[in-house]
């Protein structure tokens, strides 16, 4: 009886340590995929910036036009530090200053992120009347959020002029995607380090 109980305990311990190893490997896999995605978004962004400079002219797309006046950051990063209830810190991107409520802002940001990334294409279309009409039937809020985010995007691009090429707007979306990937990488890295600590503890317990 005691032997079988000891056997069950060690089987449970093995399952627990296997789970930790699998978590670690999953986190590592996600991390590597996200790093690759970040690299490709940045490459795309830099090439599109060169394309925008080629289209609009070097004097219109230049670091000399960056706005040095003080203004609020349109996008902020929230960090929920690790605590008794939270295993590892969590990072949340709040895009385009959509609302002052952090929770609401993160939901709006996620929604807007999904919409814009789905709609990103070679077309310069930035307003989608058909899409807005179908959303308006469901409720007014997503349309307002979409318009607000779009206005903030155009406002941040306005340092290069009020009428910018669609290539510059594509550049903005690429770098936005890269920023989201960076935040996601931070979250995955935090869970990766936590999973690694777990695996290290399991190794110490078995030796």
């Amino acid at each position, binding site marked *: 009886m005691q032997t079988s109980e000891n056997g069950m305990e060690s089987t449970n311990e093995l399952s627990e340590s296997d789970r930790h190893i699998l978590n670690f490997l999953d986190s590592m896999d996600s991390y590597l995929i996200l790093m690759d995605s970040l690299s490709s978004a940045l490459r795309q962004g830099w*090439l599109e910036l060169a394309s925008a400079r080629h289209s609009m002219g070097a004097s219109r797309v230049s670091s000399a036009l960056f706005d040095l006046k003080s203004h609020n950051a349109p996008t902020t990063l929230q960090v929920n530090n690790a605590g008794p209830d939270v295993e590892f810190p969590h990072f949340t991107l709040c895009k385009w200053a959509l609302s002052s409520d952090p929770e609401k802002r993160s939901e709006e940001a996620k929604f807007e992120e999904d919409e814009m990334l789905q709609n990103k294409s070679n*077309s310069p279309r930035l307003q989608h009347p058909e899409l807005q009409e179908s959303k308006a039937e469901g409720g007014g809020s997503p349309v307002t959020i979409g318009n607000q985010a779009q206005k903030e995007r155009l406002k941040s691009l306005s340092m290069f002029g009020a009428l*910018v090429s669609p290539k510059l707007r594509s550049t903005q979306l690429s770098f936005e995607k890269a920023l989201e990937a960076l935040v996601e990488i931070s979250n995955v890295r935090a869970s990766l380090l936590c999973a690694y600590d777990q695996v290290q503890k399991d190794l110490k317990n078995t030796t």
Partner: protein
Amino acid sequence: MYGFEALTFNIHGGYLEAIVRGYRSGLLTAADYNNLCQCETLDDIKMHLSATEYGPYLQNEPSPLHTTTIVEKCTLKLVDEYKHMLTQATEPLSTFLEYITYGHMIDNVVLIVTGTLHERDVQELLEKCHPLGMFDSIATLAVAQNMRELYRLVLVDTPLAPYFSECITSEDLDDMNIEIMRNTLYKAYLEDFYRFCQKLGGATAEIMCDLLAFEADRRAVNITINSIGTELTRDDRRKLYSNFGLLYPYGHEELAVCEDIDQVRGAMEKYPPYQSIFSKLSYGESQMLDKAFYEEEVKRLCLAFEQQFHYAVFFAYMRLREQEIRNLMWISECVAQNQKARVHDSVVFIF
């Protein structure tokens, strides 16, 4: 034959026409571009360019090179050639050559004003200005708060003064006002250049009016596409289109109400010269539109050299050199970013 230019043109314009045709033969060929597109580093590009007319301008540049350095030095060559022609020209060719630079002057004015609005250092902005568009009091632009002051303090003594009558207001300068000012000035400049060429008459008028009409039409399309999704109203958009060109006036009426690229395509495909441009693009796509327009422009500019005894060859040469510099900029960026697969996205071969 338009008139009797062949009898009298060479008295005052013969030397410079020969000079500009000599300059034209120095433009890079397809073989040069193929070699440049295979370069692995910017130093390789510099090595290939050392065998061209750009060689003396790049030879003293230290490694590591930057793409902006290559563009800057190539632009210096164009400026030197332009200044040589301008100093040798007599009227009306000298006025014609000056007209070619007013577009750069407008860009420089907008750069200084925008940079000042963004609290940038004036010296830093002056370094970014195009050398062909410089004038004496350009640094004083930084003190102006609105367009009225801009005009009164600085621009009244420049060739851009007549173009300001349509956009003088006392409103403070902001991003949208500056953009409207840029496009209004450019519209007035193109119309003035068009009238000047018409007055010259003969082959110059025939060829230049065609080239300027194409420029006006291209600007109308770009303004339309760039203003989609912005605060610019339809009326304001319509006011920025030039009052000449193939699209004037009915094409402009259609473009003014376009809300996406497919509607722009629908408006443009009614005009046969632009149907061929838009046929190269797939529906909903606009990334290759710039290249398609540049290719059409290069074709028209090269045709200008097929006739003699007119001034359009000078305009055509300047524009072809600018296209060449754009090509070199793009190739350099693709090589620097290790994106050689995309190098043919924006290179427009001239010959």
